């Protein structure tokens, strides 16, 4: 079981802020995102950052990062402004 939290505008594809999902053995981040948002995964332009247990997935293997039972995945929306 993994928990997925989607903040602000990033929750749109899932329709809710928090989900708990069963994942297959060997699942990767991209697989989990497809479970959340459908076969195409997260729509382009919907996430500014994806964190796995508080660490940006870019510091691991990006969308190919292996996901383990008990992981917390957080998806941050884009932020206009500046």
């Amino acid at each position: 079981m993994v928990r997925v939290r989607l903040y602000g505008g990033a929750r749109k594809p899932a329709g809710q802020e928090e989900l708990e999902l069963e994942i297959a053995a060997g699942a990767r981040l991209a697989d989990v995102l497809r479970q959340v948002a459908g076969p195409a995964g997260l729509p382009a332009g919907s996430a500014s950052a994806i964190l796995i247990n508080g660490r940006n997935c870019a510091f691991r293997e990006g969308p190919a990062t292996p996901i383990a039972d008990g992981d917390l995945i957080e998806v941050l929306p884009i932020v206009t402004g500046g």
Partner: protein
Amino acid sequence: MKRYLLRVNLSTGKIKKEEIPAEVLSQYIGGKGLAAWYCYKEIKPGIDALSPENKLMFFVGPLTGVFNVFSRHVIAAKSPQTGTFSDSYAGGWFGAELAKAGWLGIILEGKAKHLSCLKIEGDKATLEDAGQLAGKSVYEVDALFKDYRVATIGPAGEKLVRFAIVANDCTRRQRAGVCGRGGMGAVMGSKNLKAVLVRATGGPDDFLPEDQRPKVAEFRREFVEYLKKEVVPGMGLGGNLPAMQITADAKITPVSNFRRGYDDEYKKVSESAFKEITTGKKTCYLCPVACGVSTKAASGPFAGTELERIEYETVALNGPNCLQYDIGTVVKIGRLCNEYGIDTIAFGGITAFVMEASEKGLIDYKLAWGDGAGQVRLLEAIVRREGLGDLLAEGLAPAARKLGLEAFAVHVKGLEIPGYDVRGPVGMALAYATADRGGDHLRAWTVVAEASSPHTLEGKARLTKDLQDRNAALWTLIGCDNIPANTTGDPAKFTEFSVKGLNILGLEVDLPELLATGERIYNLTRQFNVREGFSRKDDRLPLRLTEKREDTGWRIAPEDFERLLNEYYGLRGWDQEGRPTKATLQRLGIQA
């Protein structure tokens, strides 16, 4: 349309009109580019930023005063806050007036014997005694010269507070502007220069060659349509105030000196709360966007306080970051920072630092979280340089060092970071660490575009580099920052419009050339900093951002950040110490 450089030696009183060499214009165009080139060429390495040897430079760009949203100006120098090259930008009407008077820039050298002001009328300039302006606020100075456009320092600049600002157009019907970051007001104060006044002569478009006017008019109409359709809808109330809701949604609002990234109370200082106290909207020269939000505190201890322009950064740093949720107090802090002439981001960062140190009993000074009257007292102590205020007036980094409290000082290279926690969107962390003027969000606003970059190290590093280069290119023209960051359409369209504007004026630049200019400039400002001794050791995140956040547990591990930095240096063509290699400088045509 030829514009000139005004060189003013404040020590000797000598004033000179200079041509800018054609090859320099071709390589660096205007604005940031010229500021970088002249700073690199003329500011001797290792000088004290507050000595007469520093030079204070104002520049506009080739499109300034011609097309919509190109009304901004830049002020640049070696920063007394960071010791780096520093460039700070302001909207309003001053820049357009300077351009219409026929000037592309001003270089101020030396130090005047007495407090002075520079008065520019068309192509004539004079230095005048300004003793009667001593101690006056930026509002008081502006109101005295209604026939001019005025860029002025307040009392803080005169007192050499290292994060003093230069403000313009403060008491007009139109939008005011502030060159807020990096302490340009302190450099101006160190030169005994209180204000620059400018008035163009002739009609609004007299400076344009007659044969260009019809095409210019036509493109202005096209520009206005684009702005109305793709920019106005993204601006919300203005002042970037929608960012409070967006950063709260993304859990990246700075709360209690960046210990947390979310607080339910944020709604009290959100865009909708500011709507309730908005009294008007103001606009820069030729711009239909009207992003300047004027407010008046309706209740609370500072009811009745008016502020002609408020921005998200002021609110985030002096509001949630100090656990201050009385909207009137935030308005009051903004107003006082402007009156005295200090940077609201720096002041908010410093206040939160003092609050945390006070809470932990690490300093004698008492300042509780959310103590509005205490925030006002601290501000006045800094401007008067009294007690702890005198130390804090030197800036957050040196004050924290002296107090042995560096762990609580949230800055990069001495510049307090703006209102976004970057432990989640790490491209923005790289942007803070590698911004040429220190901890800054505007050189690369990655969080709007991170979504379109791959979620990989290479993707984050490339995005940061590309945006830094693009913005350096756009700031040769000094277009509005708000547009690429807030557009509801493709940000690239603004760059394309900018190139079209140049072509209409007969400047043969295409998009790849413009972007290459941006990369050249970013490497030249890096070279300035390398010459000052900056290297990899300075491209650091504040300790706080490498610690676990108290609410979410997010952090950036130092070893992760090192890998991101390696990726970035590699893409830039810099060595592992962060120095541009000879091959890179040669490729970009930089003679270092």
